[in-house]
C-alpha cells in the first residue's frame, strides 16, 4: 500500500501506521450498520454541471515565476530524473 501511495516508510512508521489504520478501519466498519441498498452514492455537495468556455489561453506566460519554485532546472525547462529506460 505504501508503494502504491509512493511513500518510502521506515519500518518503525510501517509498524505504527499498521496498528493505527487497523483501529481506524475497524471504526469505519460502523458504516455497514446502515442500510444503503437503494441510495445513490453522492460525490458532490451541490449539483455539478459542465462548465464550458472558449478554448482561448487567458493566462500570461509566467515562466520565471513558475521555474523559480523548481528543485532543479535547465535553462527554461524543469530538470527531472530519467523517466524512460
Amino acid at each position: 500500500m505504501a508503494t502504491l501511495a509512493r511513500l518510502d516508510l521506515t519500518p518503525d512508521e510501517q509498524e505504527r501506521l499498521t496498528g493505527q489504520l487497523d483501529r481506524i478501519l475497524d471504526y469505519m466498519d460502523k458504516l455497514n450498520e446502515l442500510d444503503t441498498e437503494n441510495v445513490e452514492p453522492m460525490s458532490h455537495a451541490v449539483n455539478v454541471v459542465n462548465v464550458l468556455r472558449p478554448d482561448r489561453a487567458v493566462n500570461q506566460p509566467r515562466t520565471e515565476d513558475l521555474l523559480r519554485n523548481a528543485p532543479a532546472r535547465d535553462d527554461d525547462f524543469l530538470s527531472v530524473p530519467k523517466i524512460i529506460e
Partner: protein
Amino acid sequence: MTVHDLTLHELHERLRARELSAVELAEALFDRIEATDGAIGAYLAVCREQGMEEARRADERLAAGDASSKLLGIPVAFKDVLLTEGLPTTCASKILQGFTPPYDGTAVRRLREAGAVVLGKTNMDEFAMGSSTENSGYAVTRNPWNLGHVPGGSSGGSAAAVAAGQCVAALGTDTGGSIRQPASFCGIVGLKPTYGRVSRYGVVAYASSLDQVGPMTRDVTDCALVLQAIAGHDPADSTSVDVPVPDYGAALTGDVKGLKIGVPKEYFAAGLQPEVEQAVREGIAELEKAGAVVTEVSLPRNDYAVAAYYVIAAAEASSNLARYDGMRYGPRAQAGDLTSTYMKSRAQGFGHEVKRRIMLGTYVLSAGYYDAYYLKAQRVRALLKQDMESVLTDCDAIVAPTCPTTAFKLEEMIHDPLQMYLSDILTISVNLAGLPALSVPCGFDRTGLPIGMQIIGKHFDEATLLQVGYAYEQTTDWHTRRPVLQL
C-alpha cells in the same frame, strides 16, 4: 480599548473619519505581532514591508474620499493554505518549503482589491489535516486564552491571531470544521459558507468536495463584511455556484421573531462537556426570549458522520496530494531512479497525519475495497444530507454546540488519531451536506476557555445565520471579551 481590540467595523469608522490612519493601524498591529507572537505562534510569515506599502496606498485612497469598501486599510491575515502572489505559501508542510505562488487565490485577490492590508500567513495543521494545529510542520500555536491549550484546527493560526489582536480579521478554510472549531476554541466568530459560495481557486486542495473558504472575525457584523467581499461566482472555479449574493448587512436586523429554530437532540448526547451544554442551552433560551420558535429535532444518523467523512476526505486527499512528487516545486530527495525519488521526497516532506490520511485514502480507493469503503461512505453521505435537509424544510436554522468540549491541552489528543477524529462529530455533517454554518462565542467554562454555539442553515442562506448570530450578540457581551495574554 487599544486599536488591536477593536472590531473591523469600528476601525472602519475611525479610518473613514481620519481619526486613525491605515499606516498607524498597520504599524500598531505589526508591533503587536512582534510583541506577542513569540508566545502565541500564530504566524508562519509576516510581511511588514509589503504591508506598510499597502497601508500607505490605502491612506491615499482614504484621503481621496474613497468610500467604495469598508475593508479599505483593514489589516488581515490568511491561513497558509491560500495562495498569495510573491508571499511564501507552505500549507505548514515541509514539502512546500520555499514555495512562492505566482498568483493570488480569488478570495485573497478580492480582499486585496477591497483595500485590505495583508499582515502575513497563519499557521495550520499540515494541509489542513487536524483539529489542533499540532500537525504543523513548522510551529506550535497556542490558545490566547490559555497558552497550555491548543487553538483548535486546522485554521488555528487564523483563530489565535484574531483572538490575540494580531489581525482584525482572517480567512480560514473549513473541510470538516476547520473554521468553526478553532473559532469556538478561541472565542471568535467563524463562518463556513455554503459549498460553492466562495471560490476555491488558489486554495491548496485537501478534500475538494468539502473544502470551503470563510471569514474568522471578532463579531458577526465583521463576518458579514468579509463574506460580502469574498462571496460570489468565479469562472476560475467550476464548483463555485452562480447565484446572487445578497446584501449581508441587511440581515443584521437584531430581529428573530417567528424564526423557526431546530435543536437536534443527538448533538447534546453523551460526551458533551456539561458547561458546553449549559452555555449553548442558555444561548438558545436567549433566542427564544427574542421571539424565535424553538423545537427539538432529530438527526438520527449523525453518529455515522465521522466514519463517512474520514473515508471520503482521506480518499480525496490521497488523490489531491499525489501532485507533491518533488518534480515541479518543493525539495527533491536524491535517490537515483524516478520512483525512489518520488517515494523519498514524499516520505521526507509529509508529516505523520498527512501520511496516515494518504495511506487510508489509498486503501479505501484500492481495488477490492472501493465498494466496501468509498462507495459505502458516499451513500451514507447522501443519507446524512437527506437528514439535514429534512430538518431544514421545517426550520429556518439549526442551533447546537460547535464542539463537544472547550480547547483541549497541547499534546492531550495528538497521539490518538481516532480520538482526535471523533472530536469533529458536531461539525462534519455540515461539510458532507455542503451547508453553511456559523460559530459564535456563547460563554466560558470554569477555567476561562471559550465556548461556541453553532448555527446551521439552508444552502446559500448565510444571511439567516448572520441574522440569528447578530440577534444573539445583541443579548450578550461574550463577543466583546478579549483574552489577557500570559506573555
